[in-house]
């Protein structure tokens, strides 16, 4: 329940673009907290500390470059060591994804995950991107998130940008009913051939007896 509340806060922030400043302030706070924690934990090893600091620099530079390239289009959700999550509206996701691939070298998706939030009437789809071609980004997971309406779920497919999302998007289609525009096969993949129920990972689908 609390999670959905946070989500709804995010939504309102996204709509009013001026709030990005507040968001970035929050992030710097989080990062500084992390840093102090690490410092207090690792008093003995100084080399470890440096690695973490440089990692956070990468994340900061990621977001600052992205936001300068796409002002008002990208929204930072959180940064943690080696993790960064950014929200993009569906109509901008292809250009942002293409920029991430061509400019940052994030060349493949590790997973595509859909999450159903019935209280807000949205389905969130997250692409977890990673790089095999840039060694300094090997440890980074870049979560590119977008949202679509729960009752008519349509999203542009990222297949033209990342070949690796092909089966992941197909799985998301059958499990959550999100139709990916531009994907050649929005079809059944893992479910039985005679599956005649709603997409099973939607929250209103209940397992029998539970």
């Amino acid at each position, binding site marked *: *329940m*609390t*999670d*959905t509340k*946070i989500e709804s806060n995010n939504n309102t922030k996204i709509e009013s673009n001026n709030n990005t400043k507040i968001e970035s302030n929050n992030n710097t706070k989080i990062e500084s907290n992390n840093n102090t924690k690490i410092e207090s934990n690792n008093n003995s090893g100084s080399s470890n500390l440096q690695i973490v600091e440089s990692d956070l620099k990468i994340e900061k530079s990621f977001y600052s470059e992205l936001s300068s390239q796409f002002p008002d289009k990208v929204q930072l959700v*959180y940064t943690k060591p*080696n*993790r960064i*999550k950014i929200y993009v509206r569906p109509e901008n996701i292809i250009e942002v994804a293409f920029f991430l691939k061509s400019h940052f070298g994030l*060349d*493949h*998706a*590790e*997973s595509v*995950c859909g*999450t*159903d939030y019935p209280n807000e009437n949205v389905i969130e789809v*997250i692409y*977890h991107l990673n790089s*095999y*071609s840039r060694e300094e980004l*090997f*440890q980074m*997971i870049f*979560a590119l998130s977008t949202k679509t309406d729960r009752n008519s779920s349509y999203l542009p497919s990222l297949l033209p940008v*990342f*070949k*690796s*999302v*092909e*089966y*992941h998007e197909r*799985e998301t289609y059958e*499990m959550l009913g999100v139709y990916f525009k531009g994907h050649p096969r929005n079809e*059944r*993949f*893992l*479910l*039985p051939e005679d599956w005649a129920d709603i997409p*099973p*990972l939607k929250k209103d*689908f209940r*397992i029998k007896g*539970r």
Partner: protein
Amino acid sequence: MTNEFSESLEKKLEETTKLGLEVVKEAAEDRLMKLSVGPQHPGSGHFRFTIKLDGDYIVYCDPDPGYVHRGEEKMCEYRNFIQNIPHLERPVIHDSTNITYSYSLAVEELLGIDVPRRGQFIRAIASELNRQVYTLYWLAIYGIFLGHSTMFMWPAGDRELFIDLLTALTGARVTHAFNIPGGVRNDIPDGFKEKCLEYVNYFEKRLKEYENIFYNNPLFRQRTENVGILTKDDAINLGVTGSVLRASGVAYDVRKVEPYDVYNEIDFKVQYMKTCDSFARAYVPFLDMRESCHIIRQLLDKMPESGEVRMKLQSNPKGVPGEAYKRVESGRGALSYYIVSDGTSRPYRVKISVGSFRNILALPHLLVGSRLGDMPSIYWALNYWPVEADR
């Protein structure tokens, strides 16, 4: 030649028409034969793919997984963080420690708990031993499907060494349920360290014999070398992982690139090859097994002599609202969990991203254009575990 051939063909046509018979020309589609591989054949596992053949060449391939889809992700939403452990290891019982490893890491981040140092070492040891078990099982199947029955018997036999060790450690042969959020279930038994060292040393000698009888076997080399080339660029674009990726010249191992628990204290090399063929995909896991022996010895050496192995949790722990994404290196590559928590004792959403599912994408890519006879050596070299891919 061609003129003579066409002349004789025309003569035949004339003769046929004189007899009053109709001549039917072959359509392009008629040349193709559709063949369904699996899901019953033991060589395919619980996995089916349809191929179309033009003579001896494969021109079309469509994977159809899902025969063992159990809805693990949905099941997770009905159980609390601890109850999820036993059913989550069912997708790949031969690598059950690794599939619960990244789950535990993600849950630990959500619950905000640390694992005691000795627990981290025992976890890593169990994970390495379990990776050996899986790789040996895979090697046994790969051997038998390339017609090398000795290579079925030997790994299947040597696998028992590690199963014995894991039985002593966890109490079960394959499904251990050993990793739990907060550490491991129990401490190592007496005499485990000596027994483990003895077995690992013996196994290293056996690996040399494997190399002589299997990897240097001209028959095996002929069937795998220069077969199923997956170039570095293609491997990166398809987003494959694990040994498939490392065989295409990308030195990517999660233990190295994003060390979890104690792996940043261990000195080991990422094993990779640049030949990009089925042989490399079969040889990289072998190199991994050898490297894993060094890792196990180091872990046993550096493990603290005593201490807690597990952080005691309250009976029904609640997660902090938020999300965690954690991954480990399993026998089939990066195995990651994305868990969303809404502040209750059950996860709101669990997404399992497994190496097998990511590697299926390479199957049509490699099979189209290759010969039917190369299909087994390409398919099994992908290190594909159907049950894990279906989840």
